[in-house]
């Protein structure tokens, strides 16, 4: 099962996890990215490229399903404005065994950061600034270029 959602509504992790658990996998891994509350950001705004975003996320989920023989891959990304502490992105993977689920989850969040057309704009009171891409994200995504089930 692949589920992709790009939506301005808050992310419901319990509902998403239940969907993955229902498929009878023995192992479920998840990752939640939240708006950090510790650096003065009052609002985080997520812009995206409608159509291309969903296709890019679906392609990543398909890669993960095949590489780790997953029972399910879920990628939910919020867009629009959100407050500190709110969920920006949620990934869940189901597999028969724990290392497949955990590796696939790490792969998906690393690659969502570099392979899907989203842009973050931070508001600090009245000031707005676009977040700069980080070289460390490119390096993290590149770790997955090999065929092994986990990066070196």
């Amino acid at each position, binding site marked *: 099962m692949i589920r992709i959602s790009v939506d301005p509504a808050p992310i419901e992790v319990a509902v998403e996890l239940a969907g993955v658990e229902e498929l009878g996998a023995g192992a479920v891994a998840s990752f939640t990215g939240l708006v950090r509350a510790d650096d003065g950001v009052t609002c985080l705004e997520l812009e995206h490229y409608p159509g291309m975003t969903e296709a890019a996320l679906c392609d990543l989920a398909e890669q993960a399903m095949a590489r780790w023989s997953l029972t399910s891959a879920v990628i939910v990304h919020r867009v629009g404005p959100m407050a500190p502490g709110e969920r920006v992105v949620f990934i869940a993977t189901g597999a028969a065994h724990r290392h497949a689920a955990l590796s696939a989850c790490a792969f998906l969040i690393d690659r969502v950061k*570099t392979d899907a057309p*989203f*842009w*973050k704009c931070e508001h600090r009171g009245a000031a707005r600034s676009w*977040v700069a891409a980080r070289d460390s994200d490119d390096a993290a995504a590149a770790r997955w270029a090999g065929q092994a089930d986990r990066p070196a």
Partner: protein
Amino acid sequence: MRLLYFAAVRERIGTGEEVVSPPPSVRTVADLVDWLKGHSAGHAAAFADITRLRAAIDQRFAPLDSELGDAGEVALFPPVTGG
């Protein structure tokens, strides 16, 4: 050809979308960007630093030296920062 702009590129140009008909000499994405720079001060500002520019042709990421071919939709934007 439909052009889409996102994030800081969109804001500098002042619109998220426009339709253009570049001359035949515009063969690659880089050619297109160079040609667009002459359209307005906003375009010039948005495309001043080409190392900070990324592109997609028909909704697939494409290097700036990619041929446009018969592309219907070209998007120009800063490096992505989702997740």
